[in-house]
């Protein structure tokens, strides 16, 4: 079968478009998103409060500046397989934990760096003014620094999330579900007969990433505090 025949046959399969069938594109897409969002949420809960606190007291500057560089040097594929090995050694569920741990680890550096940078770049006068009006330190962090840094934090979350989407696809090697990457990895196993499926899976992953990036751009615009948006528009 030529590549186009393979692709046609793949697309024509009614199960591909069913919401409930595990081989279906909607099911796999949701699975892909669910895993990425779960990892992003865990990474955000672990990272943002810590970065906020460190940035408020101006500690950990070196960590903030080098985190992203370290994150870039570690290959995501290798990290997944390393965690897979550790999980199999500790007799944990090897289809869930390796991927989740790798995803959380990969999502943290951009979140940390951006939160830190966002808070540190705020003008000291603003913080002093809040202190002068009787705000406590935790109130300054929560009500002033966090909202004002939110566009920068969201930019970090966007970088993280796209990396997560890319990594979930790779994670299909060890993850039973594996989202849209499942098609690609299974297709590779089929050899030349799998080219149609490889292409379809790749295209679906690419489209999902582009859509998510667009969605993030909209969220950033919507979540930017109004005063900040006005200020930016005036510049």
């Amino acid at each position: 079968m030529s590549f186009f025949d393979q692709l046609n046959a793949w697309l024509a399969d009614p199960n591909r478009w069913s919401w409930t069938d595990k081989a279906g594109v909607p099911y796999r897409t949701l699975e892909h998103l669910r895993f990425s969002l779960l990892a992003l949420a865990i990474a955000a809960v672990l990272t943002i409060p810590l970065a906020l606190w460190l940035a408020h007291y101006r500690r950990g500057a070196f960590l903030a500046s080098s985190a992203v560089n370290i994150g870039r040097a570690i290959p995501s594929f290798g990290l997944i397989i390393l965690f897979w090995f550790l999980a199999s050694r500790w007799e944990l569920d090897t289809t869930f934990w390796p991927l989740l741990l790798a995803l959380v680890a990969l999502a943290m550096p951009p979140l940390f760096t951006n939160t830190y940078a966002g808070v540190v770049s705020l003008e000291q006068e603003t913080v002093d003014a809040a202190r002068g009006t009787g705000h406590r330190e935790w109130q300054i962090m929560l009500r002033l620094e966090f909202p004002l840094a939110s566009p920068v934090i969201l930019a970090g979350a966007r970088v993280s999330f796209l990396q997560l989407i890319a990594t979930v696809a790779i994670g299909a090697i060890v993850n039973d579900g594996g989202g849209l990457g499942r098609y690609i990895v299974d297709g590779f196993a089929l050899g030349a007969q799998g080219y149609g499926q490889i292409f379809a899976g790749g295209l679906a992953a690419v489209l999902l990433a582009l859509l998510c990036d667009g969605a993030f751009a909209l969220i950033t615009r919507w979540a930017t505090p109004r005063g900040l948006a006005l200020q930016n528009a005036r510049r």
Partner: protein
Amino acid sequence: MHLSAVTPLAADSGPPIFQWKWVDRNADDIVQRLVEHVSLTGVALGAGLLVSIGLALLSLRFRWSYGFILSAAGALYVIPSLGAFAVLVPFFGLSFVSAVIPLATYTLLILVRNIVTGVDQVPNEVREAAIGMGYTRGRLLWQIELPLALPVVIAGLRVAAVTTIGLVTVTSMLGLGGLGYFIRHGIQTATPNPTEIIVGVGLSVVLAVVVDLLLWLSERVLAPWTRKAR
């Protein structure tokens, strides 16, 4: 490209996390995979840099195209690596080309942006002085603006290189070599071999750090004025 199969460990040797014996036994293979990794990275970076210089020159000459070029490069940058490889496989097969195209594409955003930013931050007085001395537009660009932009360009190259080295491990999915081969092979054997996985991941990280350091050194050699400026 044919390799002797990786020598497995004796079954009774138990699975300690890291075995130098394995490294010793497969030293030739490790070197060859490392060379493959470096050549894939080198070709991708070289191609990315060439295309980026072209796009940056276009952006500098026609300002209105800069926005388009950056958004297009940004959209390409967002594409998941495995997805990009998968889309190309039907057309180029499990080949070097299918791997290099996405790898080079990922470098465009950072390289184009850094080249244009680098040229933009050249002080206007410098430009005026050169024009006053009779430099043509082309000579101004090649002999004054691009050399002065070098520190910013190299900063971009460092990011691109480190990212590419990490991504090359994924190309083992295409049956290409590189250090990703060990990462993949380490779990495919009957008893998973942690040494192999650690060698693959560890060497990839070490390679990234070394290349980053070399580029940083090359900046100090090629652009010595950045040192004196402090």
